[in-house]
């Protein structure tokens, strides 16, 4: 009960379950613990009004459940050879319609039953869930399914089990077959323009999609809080004391996490979020910092501005950098009026800041992608020096992504792989089978923090949310997972290979609803809890680099590349 984040409705196929342990304490509620074959155990599932025996009896109808010889209260789930046959025969249905829909998935989510219960956190699920129930009803009407009706009868026996368990179990019984189709619908309606048929796919719709162990729509209903309107001027003032200090930085960050900030406030707020100005600074101190930093900026800028043409002729490295920056500046966000048109002064500002940065951090220099990261900052700051220092602060965190050895990117792609494994094992297995575990498909997402995937204002909204570091420093990884899960039905259903997958992911650009995605990401992050944090190696960007310079060892290196 230490961490409420652990509690979540999560479907697990019985193939993954090693045993169920029953606990009947003399005082207090009965509970069970589901132990996975991986050795992982779920937190206790409490039965407030009895019903453990009924629960086990029902489970027994679907898998072979025998009492352990050693422990009377341990029930190992058998490692059977032909689960489909077993399941079908044990169900004793006239014709197991729902199972025949998913022929190659013997132990589909249809029989999985592993739920956890939270004492407080289940309130949303239990009582605030008319939409969930409506959803079930709708789904049910759509496909009349004898197997489900029988499941319902079985469930009636559960009347003693907590309402929560019943809800969760019914979800497990019902969701599987329609799940795949709802994903298809969603995918095709959103992305009708995308050509994803690279290989012969006559039988596309026949392919079964393993059920999502954490289905987003329901997950977000239970976990994701509704997004709020952006923080406005009046509300912002309530966060400040009379001299301009932020009183409660945590509350501020949380507020911004759920709604972002209005554009006119961005300059002030971004400087703080990025760490260029501190939460504790007064108006006067901020002004002092601004003027000091301006002088400092001019000094660094002067280092390259004072290079004479004669000197430049003998300074290849400088010429190359300048060249590269010039090439990229003229193709950075030119469709936005702020950077559009010939002779736009803002392009020179971009150029100056980038070249100055390449002197400030000579080891890193300039890398493609940096102009994308700087562009919204300059757009917001409208000042060279301020933009420069905000960019410096951002690069403190994202710099390792641009290292020659790409270690920052590798550690994030590695963490992403681990997180998908944790949050969607079937999808992980699919990527594994398709040799996509390097997650190169998400390279651009991570390197540019979704800048190329979103509209300009949506990018700014996402960034300020990410920069709050509320819940996690690595929310962007959960954003990746939210997107992958959103389209998992399409990805697996169409059996996308690496190339088609890459194309599909690249072409999601412009089709992402950031509010929905953020809510999904939040839910996933909460769900993953400490297990999620454990997937992310220390020092992984955007965490500040570790003092000892250690990022990840050679073992990880091998896994990723």
């Amino acid at each position: 009960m230490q961490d409420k984040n652990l509690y979540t409705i999560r479907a697990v196929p019985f193939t993954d379950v090693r045993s169920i342990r029953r606990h009947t304490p003399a005082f207090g509620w009965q509970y069970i613990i589901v132990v996975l074959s991986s050795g992982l155990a779920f937190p206790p599932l409490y039965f407030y009004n009895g019903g453990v025996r009924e629960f086990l009896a029902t489970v027994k109808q679907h898998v072979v459940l025998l009492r352990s010889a050693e422990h009377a209260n341990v029930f190992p789930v058998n490692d059977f050879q032909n689960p489909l046959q077993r399941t079908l025969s044990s169900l004793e249905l006239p014709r197991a319609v729902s199972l025949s829909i998913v022929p190659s998935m013997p132990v589909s989510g249809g029989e999985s039953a592993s739920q956890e219960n939270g004492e407080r956190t289940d309130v949303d699920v239990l009582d605030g869930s008319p939409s969930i129930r409506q959803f079930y009803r709708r789904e049910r009407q759509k496909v009349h399914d004898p197997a489900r009706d029988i499941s319902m009868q079985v469930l009636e026996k559960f009347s003693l089990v907590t309402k929560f368990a019943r809800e969760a179990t019914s979800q497990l019984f019902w969701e599987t077959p329609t799940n795949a189709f709802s994903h298809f619908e969603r995918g095709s309606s959103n992305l009708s323009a995308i050509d994803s048929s690279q290989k012969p796919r006559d039988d596309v719709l026949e392919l079964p999609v393993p059920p999502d162990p954490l289905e987003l729509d329901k997950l977000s209903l239970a976990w994701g809080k509704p997004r709020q309107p952006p923080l406005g001027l009046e509300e912002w003032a309530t966060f400040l004391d009379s001299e301009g200090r932020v009183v409660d930085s945590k509350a501020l960050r949380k507020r911004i996490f759920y709604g972002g900030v209005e554009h006119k406030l961005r300059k002030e707020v971004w400087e703080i979020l990025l760490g260029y100005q501190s939460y504790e600074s007064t108006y006067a101190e901020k002004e002092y910092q601004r003027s000091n930093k301006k002088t400092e900026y001019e000094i660094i800028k002067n280092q390259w501005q004072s290079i004479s043409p004669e000197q430049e002729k003998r300074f290849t490295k400088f010429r190359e950098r300048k060249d590269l920056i010039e090439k990229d500046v003229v193709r950075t966000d030119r469709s936005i009026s702020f950077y559009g048109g010939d002779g736009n002064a803002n392009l020179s500002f971009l150029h100056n800041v980038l070249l100055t940065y390449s002197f400030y951090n000579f080891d890193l220099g300039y890398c493609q992608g940096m102009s994308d990261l700087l562009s919204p900052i300059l757009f917001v700051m409208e000042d060279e020096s301020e933009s420069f220092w905000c960019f410096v602060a951002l690069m403190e965190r994202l710099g390792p992504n641009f290292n020659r050895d790409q270690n920052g990117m590798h550690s994030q792609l590695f963490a992403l792989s681990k997180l998908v494994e944790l949050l969607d094992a079937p999808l992980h297995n699919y990527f594994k089978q398709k040799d996509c575990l390097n997650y190169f498909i998400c390279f651009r997402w991570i390197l540019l923090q979704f800048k190329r995937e979103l509209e300009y204002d949506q990018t700014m909204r996402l960034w300020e949310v990410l920069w709050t570091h509320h819940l996690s420093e690595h929310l962007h990884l959960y954003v990746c997972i939210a997107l992958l899960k959103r389209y998992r039905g399409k990805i697996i259903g169409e059996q996308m290979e690496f190339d088609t997958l890459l194309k599909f992911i690249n072409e999601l650009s412009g089709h992402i609803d950031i509010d929905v995605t953020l809510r999904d990401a939040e839910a996933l992050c909460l769900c993953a809890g400490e297990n999620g944090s454990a997937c992310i190696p220390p020092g992984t960007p955007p965490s500040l680099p570790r003092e000892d310079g250690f990022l990840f060892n050679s073992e990880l290196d091998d896994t990723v590349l």
Partner: protein
Amino acid sequence: MAHRVDHEYDYLFKIVLIGDSGVGKSNILSRFTRNEFCLESKSTIGVEFATRTVQVEGKTVKAQIWDTAGQERYRAITSAYYRGAVGALLVYDITKRQTFDNVQRWLRELRDHADSNIVLMMAGNKSDLNHLRSVSEEDGHAVAEKEGLSFLETSALEATNIEKAFQTILNEIYHIVSKKALAAQEAAASASIPGQGTTINVGDESGNTKTACCST
């Protein structure tokens, strides 16, 4: 049939576009696959690809063209995409001497990461900017000859020689592949069990055929 099904092709050839940043790789790709050109197109981050189906000697060939980030910094990532490529178009910018001088580095890169039998072509792009030229066409030809590459000067902006460049690569790949297919056919024929209507070629020449790397 209402829709022409996308997978109706005889061959799928993967071709990579390589060369320094800003030489015009992405625009060569968009010109060839969508007949588009954008002066302010964004830099390529990571890898993108597009496809176009063309006819080569009566066969339908689907060209899958991979566009990679040009900056050296991303070599570790982009070189992974050379796998399976049967053709490469090495692009430089005729107005930027440095991009031409770097051709040698790109060739080394290919030798290290791509199949040794990859079909290679060099393109001197931006031929529309003749007034800014810093690499003569003769220099281009000389390097191409020395390295044994096909060569063309192209302009994605004016759509000059883009079609021709890809047709040349695809033709060459096709010849290698069809030769290989023929050899494989002969080998298969000679290996199959007699009595099923196949003629066994006793004087099988497939062993002498130069086997190409290309695989579809």
